[in-house]
């Protein structure tokens, strides 16, 4: 019971760790190039979730100062702002990798990494 309670209390951390592993598994085991990019995106999302969960305080409110009220607990706004930057970075990486995938499809005629490696070992490059 103790364990289940612990897990439920930290459900955000457990969830983000699970998502991280799912993403990593997708990147490493799938040979489809698009699925690799999707895996990368899942990993990125898991870290965003983790970061935002660190800053969350239960019962806290949006960090906008209301004049005249003293005893209000605010949510830590810094992780959320950092994640905004993180999202931009993730977007640019996705865009660049998708453009590379388009080029690769034009050159090799397939999206399968294993088939591309086969074509390479047949010595059709250069």
């Amino acid at each position: 019971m103790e364990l289940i309670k612990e897990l439920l209390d930290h459900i955000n951390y457990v969830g983000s760790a699970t998502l991280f592993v799912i993403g990593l598994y997708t990147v490493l085991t799938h040979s489809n190039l698009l699925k690799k990019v999707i895996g990368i995106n899942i990993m990125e999302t898991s870290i965003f979730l983790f970061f935002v969960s660190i800053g969350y305080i239960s019962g806290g409110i949006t960090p906008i100062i209301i004049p005249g009220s003293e005893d209000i607990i605010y949510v830590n706004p810094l992780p959320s702002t950092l994640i905004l930057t993180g999202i931009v970075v993730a977007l640019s990486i996705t865009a660049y990798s998708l453009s590379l995938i388009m080029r690769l499809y034009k050159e090799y005629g397939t999206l399968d990494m294993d088939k591309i490696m086969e074509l390479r070992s047949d010595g059709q490059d250069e």
Partner: protein
Amino acid sequence: MNSIHYPIIIMLLFLIVGVSNPVIKKKFDNIEKSILMSTFFVAIALAFYTFLYVNIEGPFFYNFGNWGRKFGIEFAIDGFSSLLSLLILILSAIIVWYSFRDIGHEMDDENFISYYTIVFLLIFSMLGITFSNDLFNIYVFMEILSLTSCGIISIKHKRVNFLASFRYLILNTLGSLSFFFGIALLYMVTGHLNIVEMNIAIQEVWQVTPTNILLATGFMFIGLAIKSALFPMHVWLPDAHSSAPSPSSALLSGLVVKVYIFTMAKIVFNVLGKEISQALDIDLFLSIFAAISMIMGSIFAIAQKDIKRMLAYSSVAQIGYMFLGIGIATELGLAAGFFHIFSHALMKSALFLSAGAIIYKKDLRDISRFDGLGYELPISMSVFTIAALGMIGIPGIVGFMSKFYLAEAVILAGKPYYVVVILLSSFLNAVYYLPIIISAFIKKDPDREKILEIDDIPRSMYTSMIIIGFCMILFGMFPNLLMNTIINVVPTFIN
């Protein structure tokens, strides 16, 4: 103007010139070349002034907008970061000077200007990582660096390049995300992102949450090891470095991986501190990975037939030396590791540039066909020979001094078994570098007519190679020019 602003001015200069260049210029001509070179000239002058200023006045912190350490972004300009920024600027200026003629051979005309935009953003992000004193900032610069370093590979429109670039991008992103997860874990414990504040917080709490800190360091180490191609995580490097245009390979192998190693040193010594990292056995992990990398990189290099692939695997081995320097964690050990950052940057860029000259002139990548090449391309092959002898560790060249310092540090630290690893790695280096030198200068090419001719390559290419070759011998003969500065800086890391 106050000279504390110079580092940020250098970075802004590269950002502005890099981004505005494709907008204002349509054609790649002499005006464009002079804009690029004068940017480098101004940046080197400012960086040199900063370097002198730091050495006289002492290191300083630069706060953006005076926000203070806890809220704002901060740069730490100390002796080593100013020295590393000077190396980055000078070496990339030489490589860009070399590339003016070489890129015509490597890529389409319409891509020239965009190539230099990417190179300038690459230099911008390397300087950012070097100066930054804030882990999240380092992460953002790291992502810019991984995008741009993939960009300078895929700009050569061949299918091999797209594939190499894609694999590099995926592994690089895995590395960045791993590093980011490490930052998140450390932020969870400390509540800060600034390195100085983090260090203070960690010293208070590390005994309460050692698992968390060990996990965070593990994630960060894996991330940086993927990016700097330590042995089991090196799979992207041979393809990426060998298919890229030669100037890009020199930039990637000579400078980009070094920045990640410096980041590792920052994390081990500045964020955690020496005592905590030793209590958590982080130095042991680093040394073991480094030793395996030193041996395995050389063994893989022996089997290669393509010259640029061989040089790429040789980088894997050399990166082991620098990680070993961090792993020993004594003052001399760290100094030797830092010294090797400089010597390897010089030697590996010289090797890639001379290999580029051989490919430019003869279109030759296969090592077994190098017979008699020393008489056709005497300047390129001489520079290649100097650098290769330095890699093996012949006295008088800069590579010998870094091995010497490293061996001394290992013995003084009471770990003499690493001397065996260093000697074995040097011996393996000799196994794959010496045959090239012998076949180039001693064997005879049956088709050759003239006895000796001077390299028929553009002037910008051989002048840049001669400058690097001269620097290798200069710092080999007088290593104290560099070592004195490094020795002065190292105590700020260790204590």
